[in-house]
């Protein structure tokens, strides 16, 4: 019992450390990137996506590389299903309405659905995630980032003020403190993610639940930055940020979260992930796009539909396992 309590406490503390370390890492990395002349557009586009998804990525990556691939896959796919059903569902219920935009659905929504389809097809075809899958996933992410950068460049061209600001902010000098905090953030991420994976795997053993399910449950914690970002954005009426965070995070979780570790090791995939979790992710993503497109907004009732879908998914999954 004492061991379980210690593990739960260490899981919570390490989650907090990882989330704050990711924030510190990305924030200071952007500053260093600016010093080296990397476009603020590129940094802005990537930092927003990485900023919220780094805890899932770090946990999935370390789980896979340290011999617990089920936790890694569960964490990535579980996070995507929770992002749509749980986070967006709850945020819509709280905010009342979240407006959507055609461009956002067409570009990011389609990419989220394509990503879900591709990973499920690969899992079905190979029964594992290997080097070829990793290369394909990373290539798609590079194309997607290029599309985002092009779109952002067009926005900047249409806004001269932003352009002037961008030019001014480029003239920065490398600060030692930025380097220090990047290294500290990275160490925090590595140590925190290792503790997260260890605690999750050990707790799964104690509770006699499969590692993949433990990964899905872990996603509740690693998606905390997404949860607070989406909820706060929705409440403040920042609709694009709310929907964009979920779609961007889901794309990142699959293409990078599973793509990068696939480059280093062959990741075996459980049958239930191929036949149930993957299809469930596709269905929820499709449902979200249909709801977003229908009236170009999510209403409170649709938030309830999304959250109910997640509850049905989890209920069914637990039932199948039992």
């Amino acid at each position, binding site marked *: 019992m004492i061991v379980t309590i210690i593990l739960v406490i260490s899981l919570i503390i390490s989650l*907090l450390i990882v*989330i*704050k370390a*990711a*924030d510190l890492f*990305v*924030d200071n990395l*952007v500053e260093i990137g600016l010093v080296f002349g990397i476009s603020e557009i590129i940094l802005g586009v990537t*930092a*927003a996506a990485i*900023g*919220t998804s780094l805890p899932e990525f770090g946990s999935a990556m370390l789980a896979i590389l340290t011999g617990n691939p089920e936790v890694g896959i569960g964490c990535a796919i579980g996070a995507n299903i929770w992002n749509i059903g749980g986070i967006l569902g709850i945020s819509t*219920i*709280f*905010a*009342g309405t979240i407006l959507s935009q055609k461009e956002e659905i067409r570009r990011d929504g389609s990419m989220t659905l394509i990503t879900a389809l591709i990973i499920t097809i690969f899992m079905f075809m190979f029964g594992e995630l290997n080097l070829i899958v990793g290369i394909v996933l990373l290539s798609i992410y590079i194309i997607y980032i290029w599309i985002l950068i092009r779109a952002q460049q067009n926005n900047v061209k249409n806004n001269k003020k932003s352009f002037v600001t961008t030019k001014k902010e480029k003239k920065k000098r490398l600060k030692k403190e930025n380097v220090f905090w990047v290294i500290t953030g990275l160490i925090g991420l590595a140590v925190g993610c290792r503790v997260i994976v260890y605690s999750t795997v050990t707790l799964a053993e104690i509770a006699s639940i499969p590692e993949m399910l433990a990964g899905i449950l872990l996603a509740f914690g690693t998606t*905390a*930055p997404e949860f*607070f*970002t989406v*909820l*706060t*954005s929705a*409440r*403040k*009426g*920042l609709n*694009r*940020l709310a929907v964009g*965070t979920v779609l961007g995070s889901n794309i990142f979780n699959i293409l990078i979260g599973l793509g990068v570790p696939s480059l280093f090791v062959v990741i075996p995939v459980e049958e239930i992930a191929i036949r149930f979790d993957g299809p469930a992710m596709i269905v929820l993503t499709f449902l979200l796009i249909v709801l977003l497109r229908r009236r170009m907004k999510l209403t*409170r009732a649709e938030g309830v539909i999304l959250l109910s879908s997640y509850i049905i998914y989890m209920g069914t999954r637990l039932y199948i396992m039992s």
Partner: protein
Amino acid sequence: MVYKKVLVTSTGEYLDDILKHTLDLISERKMDVIGLYVVDTSVPFLTPKKIKEMMITELKKKGREILDSMKVEFEKPGNYMINFTEMMVEGDPADEIVRIAEEENVDVIVMGTGKSVVDKHLLGSVSEKVVHSAPCTILLIRTVQDEK
């Protein structure tokens, strides 16, 4: 009581209604009107710093659009008797509205109200907080639409 200074504030919802009622209150009298937008900077502890910065940037853009709409309406030739000034501040909306009302010695605050019961519980109500601590009269414009 003759009102000489009005503070108009909005988050963008039902702005037209709020402006219409303000003009009705002013009628043909000479009056100072302050248009206020409060950038709500509060975010939960675990929100990434870059995301917080993005939120503030977006809210400032939104605030600029709202203040521009107010300026266009209050500076129309027909509203020659209005001396319009605008303000954008950062902080807790209710606290800032009360603070500006005190500092500027305004006679009346005009703002929207009327969230549904569910919204009030889930989102909270800025107007309710302002009502409890405002130093002056408040004109609350009922902005909720009846749900059929």
